[in-house]
């Protein structure tokens, strides 16, 4: 048996069916580009930040900082500045630079806060040490309480220059100073998108309210001295609770922290990339299945003149392989391009990445090949097997060949659907095997569900499309009736080409259910659990300085004000997040559905526990728990109450309890407040907003405004997911289009006859167009049903403090249906043009 002939025929077949080949290649290329783009983007960002932190810490040999008992996302406790003096005296130490990083916000001339995409940072900066890799772009280092430096990117954007006097806000209030320098990081003008206010150490200590403490102390070791020896000497000098680590470790840790975000971001993108690739698999499978039907006689002829079934199968697989390889190559190129474009777009949006390299890892190429070639070849396994079963006699009697192409899929489909649903549910609720189990079971279950529903849906395709087509037939008479019949005559094809759209739609509608449920839970919470009139959040998501809450507490129109702060602690070896509040105010603002004990009486070293962990740990009012905080401090907390509403987490302590154990700079997640009895809402509003004018970063919202902005965020989630699915949906539309075009090709003679007996071009176009609409509406309906199921399961699986109430949004469902119809119209453009522009005589003469 020769590989030559199969390769020859495969090659010719690709060439002879350019349109089909291009469409398939486009679908695969899109999927591969997405996969490659996700990897390249994440890898490039990772490399950039790893390099950046290494560069930043290049001059730093050692760093002294406080010990952290366990990893959490909280900042380290500050250490005493006096440590710097004792370290400086150690032999071999060349320079020592204490560093402080706090909150500082520039205010422009009109009193508006200067916002950036990144955080607003205040830092201490001693230019002499030059340890941080900071470069002066213009001017002289700031010295003394009246001077500051800012980053060049912000200066340029806000039209500020050396010599300008500006106002900035820190934890201690408003300050004024003259800009003496603009700064950059290495050759860049920006500090990763952050807006920077740099002060000399002494000024920083005062203006940031650091109280004689700094975040860390960087050490440069003299040339020739052993870093390890100095590290040992420093370790002996510094007090308990502080540690000395190498600059490399610090750089690695800092990079790791960013890398975690990049990982999450990259993984999120990858999930959608794989969805896109998965969708393209449906298209490839369907297109091959159809073309094999069309090539039935050709394949049978091959069998008749002596090709074995294996050769036929190999020929089809070779065709797919060739398309897969070409698409993979194109996809790798496309992916790198997409990643570059995204980085440029981020940069333009103000992310301020330092010069980013493009990292194309071997792993990325391997994944691209696995996805591109793997999916293509896997997609044609079944079509190729069917092709190999075509009997040679079908060369003369094609009707005998179609039996070989028929599939019994109801049983397999049903099994897949049920198994997939069970896996999905078990994965989300029982979560055996932790996160990996969750991903394997829920993800694998969803994939099986999609495959199962796609194959089962061919059995319901006929009745459902007949119903969808009914109004179309009534409206458009003959073309409508033709559209309806054409959809119904190949239910397998209809369901397969609709399946790709079904996947996209089900993910969107599943997210819609999830989002609606999130919203309804939020509404419920705001209506029932929280009686606050104002919710103050931070625009830049850095957490609010405590002065915001303190200022609000002074407003006479307000009756109760409490910040919500957080701290992590180990209870029984497990990390728990404690919420810290002002108990007296909190009681007036929030009803946590207390089952035992009271809130207002919450004393120092007492804790309120949610019913679930209380049940797990056998806690009752009066029980004692030992907590170890991140800074190593331990304390014993007494359970003062048990509550049932998890809106504010599972563990609540007072601010006093928190401040007694931690010196870390306080950051409030948000502040909630309530108007005093008898105060007019309008008057209160004026009072609150006036008080907050000094804090432009504080975002003051009434209960209703807060709900609206949260809703906007929820809607944004929906929009982002829909946008990430855009590729998949486009591929689905392409799939419907090509299926339809192949169908038109098959019906050439039939269409010729219709034209011959008097159907005009417009009517032909109309019938093809509405056929597309019926197919896409069918996909959308199956997708909405499946997506609603997925969304409901997911919503039920997440904890009650996130979603406690299911909700559906008929508006979104309507919108999805309308979009599906539009998608169908879009998909029909090419096939309907093709159908209407056939030469009537040629068409009739076609065999």
């Amino acid at each position: 048996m020769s590989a030559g002939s199969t390769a020859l025929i495969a090659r010719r077949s690709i060439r002879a069916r350019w349109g089909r080949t291009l469409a398939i290649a486009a679908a695969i290329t899109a999927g591969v580009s997405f996969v490659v783009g996700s990897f390249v983007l994440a890898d490039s960002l990772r490399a950039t930040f790893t390099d950046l932190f290494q560069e930043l810490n290049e001059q730093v040999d050692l760093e002294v900082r406080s010990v952290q008992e366990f990893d959490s996302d909280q900042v380290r406790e500050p250490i005493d500045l006096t440590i710097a003096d004792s370290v400086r005296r150690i032999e071999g130490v060349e320079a020592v630079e204490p560093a402080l990083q706090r909150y500082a916000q520039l205010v422009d001339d009109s009193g508006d806060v200067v916002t950036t995409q990144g955080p607003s940072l205040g830092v201490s900066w001693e230019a002499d040490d030059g340890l941080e890799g900071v470069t002066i772009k213009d001017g002289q280092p700031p010295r003394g309480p009246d001077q500051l430096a800012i980053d060049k990117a912000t200066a340029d954007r806000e039209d500020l220059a050396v010599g300008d006097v500006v106002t900035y806000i820190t934890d201690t209030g408003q300050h004024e100073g003259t800009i003496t320098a603009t700064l950059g990081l290495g050759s860049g003008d920006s500090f990763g998108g952050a807006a920077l206010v740099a002060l000399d150490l002494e000024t920083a200590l005062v203006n940031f309210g650091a109280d004689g403490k700094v975040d860390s102390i960087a050490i440069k070791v003299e040339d020739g001295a052993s870093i390890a020896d100095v590290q040992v000497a420093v370790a002996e000098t510094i007090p308990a609770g502080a540690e000395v680590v190498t600059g490399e470790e610090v750089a690695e840790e800092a990079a790791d922290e960013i890398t975690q975000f990049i990982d999450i971001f990259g993984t999120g993108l990858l999930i959608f990339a794989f969805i896109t690739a998965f969708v393209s698999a449906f298209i490839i499978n369907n297109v091959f299945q159809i073309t094999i039907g069309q090539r039935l006689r050709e394949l049978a002829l091959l069998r008749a003149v002596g090709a074995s079934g294996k050769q036929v199968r190999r020929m089809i697989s070779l065709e797919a392989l060739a398309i897969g390889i070409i698409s993979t190559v194109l996809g790798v190129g496309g992916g790198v391009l997409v990643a570059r474009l995204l980085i440029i777009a981020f940069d333009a949006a103000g992310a301020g990445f330092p010069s980013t390299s493009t990292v194309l890892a071997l792993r990325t190429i391997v994944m691209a090949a696995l996805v591109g070639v793997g999916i293509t070849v896997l997609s044609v396994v079944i079509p190729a097997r069917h092709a190999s079963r075509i009997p040679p006699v079908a060369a003369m009697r094609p009707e005998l060949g179609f039996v070989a192409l028929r599939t019994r899929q109801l049983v397999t489909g049903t099994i897949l659907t049920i198994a997939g649903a069970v896996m999905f549910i078990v994965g989300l609720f029982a979560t055996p095997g932790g996160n990996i189990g969750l991903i394997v079971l829920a993800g694998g279950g969803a994939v099986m569900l999609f495959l199962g529903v796609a194959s089962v849906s061919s059995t319901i395709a006929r009745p459902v499309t007949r119903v969808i087509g009914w109004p179309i037939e009534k409206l458009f008479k003959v073309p409508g009736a033709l559209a309806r019949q054409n959809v119904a005559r190949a239910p397998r094809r209809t369901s397969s080409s609709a399946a790709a759209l079904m996947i996209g739609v089900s993910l969107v509608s599943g997210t819609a259910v999830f989002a609606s449920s999130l919203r309804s839970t939020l509404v419920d919470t705001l209506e029932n659990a929280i009686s606050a009139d104002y919710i103050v959040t931070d625009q830049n998501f850095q957490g609010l300085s405590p002065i915001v809450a303190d200022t609000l507490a002074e407003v006479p129109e307000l009756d109760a004000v409490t910040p919500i702060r957080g701290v992590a602690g180990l209870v029984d070896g497990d990390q728990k997040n404690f919420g810290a509040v002002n108990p007296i105010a909190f009681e007036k603002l929030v009803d946590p559905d207390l089952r035992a004990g009271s809130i207002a009486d919450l004393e120092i070293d007492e804790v309120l526990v949610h019913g679930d962990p209380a049940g797990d740990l056998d806690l009752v009012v009066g029980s004692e728990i030992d907590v170890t905080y991140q800074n190593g401090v331990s304390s014993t907390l007494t359970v003062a109450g048990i509550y049932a509403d998890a809106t504010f987490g599972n563990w609540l302590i007072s601010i006093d309890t928190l401040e007694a154990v931690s010196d870390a700079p306080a950051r409030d997640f948000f502040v909630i407040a309530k108007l005093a009895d008898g105060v007019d809402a309008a008057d209160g509003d004026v009072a609150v907003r006036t008080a907050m004018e000094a804090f432009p970063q504080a975002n003051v919202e009434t209960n209703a405004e807060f709900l609206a902005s949260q809703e906007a965020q929820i809607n944004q989630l929906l929009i982002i997911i829909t946008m990430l699915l855009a590729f998949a949906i486009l591929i689905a539309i392409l799939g419907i289009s090509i299926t339809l075009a192949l169908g038109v090709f098959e019906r050439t003679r039939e269409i010729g006859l219709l034209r011959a007996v008097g159907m005009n071009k417009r009517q032909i176009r109309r019938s093809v167009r509405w056929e597309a609409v019926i197919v896409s509406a069918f996909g959308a309906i199956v997708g909405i049903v499946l997506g609603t199921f997925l969304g409901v399961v997911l919503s039920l699986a997440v904890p009650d403090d996130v979603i406690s109430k299911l909700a559906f949004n008929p508006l979104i469902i309507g919108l999805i249906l309308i979009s599906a119809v539009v998608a169908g119209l879009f998909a029909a453009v090419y096939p309907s043009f093709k159908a209407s522009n056939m030469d009537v005589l040629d068409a009739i003469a076609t065999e």
Partner: protein
Amino acid sequence: MNTPVPPPPPAPLGRPDSPTEPASVTAAGAVNASKLYGVGDTQIRALDDVTVSFEAKKFTAIMGPSGSGKSTLLHCLAGLDTLTTGATYIGDTYLASLDDKALTELRRTKIGFIFQTFNLIPTLTAEENIRLPMTLGGEAGDTAWIEQVITTVGLDDRLHHRPSELSGGQQQRVAVARALASRPQIIFADEPTGNLDSITGSEILDFMRRAVKELGQTIVMVTHDPIAASYADRVIFVGDGKVIGEMLDPTSDQVIDHLKNWD
């Protein structure tokens, strides 16, 4: 397959002891061949206990009206379709004893085909189509012979054209050349001229007869055209799935007369 072990190939039907011809060899045949399609009330008996054999180096035509079973007989003889009961053989090989692989090999090496339409792979050139049985087997074939065949059918200047660029007659000539190229033991032709005008058709038939006379080929052809049948050495008449008669060295008028007598 519920075929019982078949008897050995019988002597050619007709004149095994013909005085004018040497004792001939049987190239192919069927023994008690029956073929049923469908089940229950819709069951059709396409072949009904047919026993027939075909001489080597002869041009045999199978004639019969539509639905007579003539095509089914050809398909089963050629190993394209399987019998319900009975046996078919090519040379001394019983087709029922072969698995799909061996049957494929047999088709590729021992059998040539010419169909009424759709004889060629549309994406391959004329030459590639002609060489297809050989390339499928990974062989070059007998180059000199293939060139001779190509020249004989007059395709030298059409070798690099696709089927869509060839006329119906040219396409059939390519099909004939392909059937001859691998020097098969036997060529089966299914209405090879059914789609051609009479002049082109007679060219093809003439060429097929020359292949038998001059090159010693064996050809079995199904047709319903008395003129086509007149090119054959022998005509077998089939009706209702049975062999109902035969004629040697037929002329078209004889065939027409014979057909008239049936009605």
